[in-house]
């Protein structure tokens, strides 16, 4: 175990030097690194949000609300169809995602089923490509008809809603110019957002909390709001609250005249007369055409601008607006106008998002944690180094060299893999300092035993290494098992801990059997000690 071939020595040195190179950038500021010659790597350890400050948000797409909306749409279409076909029905109600009703003339059932199936083709077209398979499940029991959406279809719309949500979340966050956001899908209906450097995510949270569904509807001028009967609206109309004052109600026609999906641009600005912050918007060709038509036909009438089911404002149409651009005013502050413009440009979310988890760390705390971690690591490191030399003398010094190299390698590998270093990750490194010497301790103790049993120095060292090997492997594999379970089951910071722990296990075993052993072997062959004082 003491002989090293030349090629082995060279590769051990090469690996050590490569590790140092990889770890090097971490000692310098970003600015200095940019001046480095190109052969020196520039990747630093990636700091976790708990160290550099930042915000972690876990959102869930409320897919239930989409299903509900789909059922509502279907109910609306179904009623219209039944009315158009002159089929008499009663007791139409929605129970647990299915529409149940009775028809008075049971003989019409077969024709009805065909018509409902056609209805399903039309409902599918905007969500997923119309397939030959129906999206509807129709259950008939004499005159009792039960219509519901198939599970496959519900799954499809929820998948596409989640993907669409991720896209829109990305657009909204990009609009705010946050640096290096990470937006990932997690599980089936969750979105994980990581925003480094952002310690107060209130603005982003409020932006993500809005679906931003914009619609233009006509105000129902024939009806007036009756506070004693707050839910009663004429057929075809609905009661909506004002955005600025929830006490104030509007009665608007249910029919959407133009929708936000036709917007091509929205920018914050100021009204030329009142100097009030507003949002200027522009429609695409179809939207402009619709908008022109409505405004032309309804001059003098109020036109409600509705965001997320709340009336932002309801200005009276003075002229036909044919150019396809308009202005929304609603008593905004400049920031509110800017945010609304962002929301309108990014588009509406297909479903509301619910924040399941938030973890935000301010940059101060992160910096404090890094400093505390550095101090703890340094002191722990020095303590272990001194202790090793006191106990094992020159061999302790060899182990200490390996320990230093070990730390450099951990840093180098973290930089290379671009793994994230978290606060528990720093704890993992410090723990590694303590445990890294274990391999060398096992070897040295074995050598001591061999010496005591009367073997020569060379034989003792040689068999000490040989016999400690299987113990070291067994002992470290158990820790490695624990670390990998942490990696697969843990989240965020805890994952960072398992990564540094696992890397530390590999490097400590590696350095014990290469670097320390090489030094020991050189020491023995050059100094030819008659006895070892371990």
């Amino acid at each position, binding site marked *: 175990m003491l002989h090293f071939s030349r090629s082995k020595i060279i590769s051990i040195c090469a690996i050590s030097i490569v590790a140092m190179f990889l770890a090097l950038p971490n000692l310098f500021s970003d600015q200095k690194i940019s001046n480095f010659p190109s052969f020196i790597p520039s990747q630093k350890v990636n700091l976790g949000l*708990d160290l550099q400050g930042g915000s972690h948000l*876990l959102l*869930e797409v409320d897919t239930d609300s989409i299903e509900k909306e789909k059922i509502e749409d279907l109910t609306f279409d179904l009623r219209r169809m039944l009315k158009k076909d002159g089929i008499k029905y009663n007791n139409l109600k929605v129970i647990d995602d299915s529409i149940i009703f009775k028809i008075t003339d049971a003989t019409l059932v077969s024709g009805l089923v065909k018509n409902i199936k056609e209805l399903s083709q039309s409902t599918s077209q905007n969500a997923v490509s119309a397939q030959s398979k129906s999206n509807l499940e129709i259950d008939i029991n004499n005159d009792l008809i039960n219509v519901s959406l198939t599970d496959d279809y519900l799954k499809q719309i929820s998948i596409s809603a989640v993907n669409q949500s991720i896209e829109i979340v990305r657009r909204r966050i990009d609009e705010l110019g946050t640096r290096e956001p990470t937006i990932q899908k997690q599980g089936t209906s969750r979105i994980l957002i990581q925003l480094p450097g952002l*310690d107060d995510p209130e603005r982003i949270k409020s932006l993500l909390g809005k679906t931003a569904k914009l619609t233009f509807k006509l105000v129902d001028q024939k009806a007036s709001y009756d506070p004693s009967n707050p839910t009663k609206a004429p057929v075809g109309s609905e009661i909506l609250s004002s955005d600025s004052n929830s006490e104030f109600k509007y009665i608007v026609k249910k029919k959407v005249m133009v929708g936000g999906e036709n917007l091509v641009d929205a920018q914050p600005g100021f009204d030329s007369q009142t100097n009030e912050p507003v949002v200027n918007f522009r429609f695409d060709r179809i939207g402009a055409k619709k908008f022109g038509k409505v405004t032309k036909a309804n001059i003098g009438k109020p036109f409600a601008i509705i965001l997320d089911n709340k009336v932002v404002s309801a200005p009276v149409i003075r002229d036909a607006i044919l150019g396809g651009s308009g202005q929304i005013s609603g008593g905004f502050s400049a920031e509110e106008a800017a945010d609304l413009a962002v929301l309108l440009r990014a588009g509406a979310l297909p479903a509301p998002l619910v*924040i*399941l*988890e*938030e*973890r*935000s*760390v*301010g940059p*101060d705390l992160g910096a404090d*944690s890094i400093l*505390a971690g550095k101090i703890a*690591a340094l*002191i*722990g*490191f020095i*303590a*272990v180094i001194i*202790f*090793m030399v006191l*106990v094992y*003398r020159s061999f302790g010094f060899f182990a200490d060299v390996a320990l230093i190299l070990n730390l450099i390698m951990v840093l180098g590998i973290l930089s290379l893999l671009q793994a994230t270093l978290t606060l*528990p990750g*720093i*704890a993992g490194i*410090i*723990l590694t*300092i*303590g445990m890294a*010497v*274990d391999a060398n*301790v096992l070897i040295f103790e074995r050598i*001591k*035993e061999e010496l*005591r049993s009367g073997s020569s120095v060379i034989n003792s060292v040689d068999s000490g290494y040989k*016999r400690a090997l*299987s*113990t070291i492997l*067994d*002992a*470290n*594999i*158990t*820790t*490695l*098992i*624990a670390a990998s*379970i*942490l990696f697969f*089951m*843990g989240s965020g910071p*805890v994952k960072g*801990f*398992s990564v540094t*722990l696992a890397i530390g296990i590999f490097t400590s075993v590696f350095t014990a059997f290469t670097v320390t052993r090489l030094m020991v072997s050189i020491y023995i062959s050059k100094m030819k000690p008659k006895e070892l*004082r*371990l």
Partner: protein
Amino acid sequence: MNIFSFAINTKIKFLSFRKPAFVLSMALIISSILIYSINGLNFGIDFRGGTLIEIETTETENLGNLRRSLNSLNLGDVQVQEFGSPKNILIRVEQQAGGDKTQQNVVNIVKAELNTSLNSDVNFRRTEVVGPKVSAELIKAGVIAIIVAVFAMLIYIWFRFEWQFSLGAVIALIHDVLLTLGIFSLLQLEFNLSIIAAILTIVGYSMNDTVVVYDRVRENLRKHRKKDILDLLNISINETLSRTIMTSVTTLLALLSLYIFGGSVIKGFTFAMIWGVLVGTYSSIFIAAPLLNYLEVKRDWSTSGAVESTQK
């Protein structure tokens, strides 16, 4: 003679203490379970849901007043405590009724109240909000992780040694985990995600220690076919004793440094680790090894030499 060369050629009869050690451990385990069933664990928001806000103030604030004003916000139980220094305050608000959607308002309400009721400028150092869905999942994942880890160890040791070793090692592991839960319950230290990480590391560390002792036991079983098992276990523990102490000391040196200098956020984690190293070292010597005496470990290793290439 080097004064730091300790534990050489010791002949301590560890196995003579096996009965008092078992009694002590059983007593500790039973009291851990009792304390746990009375006190429960002081779950952090990771597992209980709720909101945690850490602030730094420019002036030293009166925590009593702050506690009163925050508790009058109708947010349920609000805990206010100093965190590391008098100007650092940790505020915990219990989970709100009404599912995930209602948790988010708490942050805004508390922040507004802090900005009006405190005299100082407030620096929000940390905000964590965990809703009921996520906290339930985190508990589940944590429990599964520990069970999977212990099970994986059981399989690995079984594979590398014999079932007696694997059973002995796992009993020692469960002992360590239960005592860790016990101390957290007794001292009502916050039990959060990082403590699960600490427990898993303890599992790894304690196993590491046990494996080193077991490895030597196996070697000695091959070397001394006829020797009394108690003597053989004593020899094995003594032979590995200096290593056991060395590694515990270096690990504790690093952990103590982290405990003292590593900052408040990570104190609970480090405490659990320090406790785990102590308990793990004890259990390797006084529980795991003596258990082999009772589990009737196989004596004739002549045929199973294939498991491990025979040395010497």
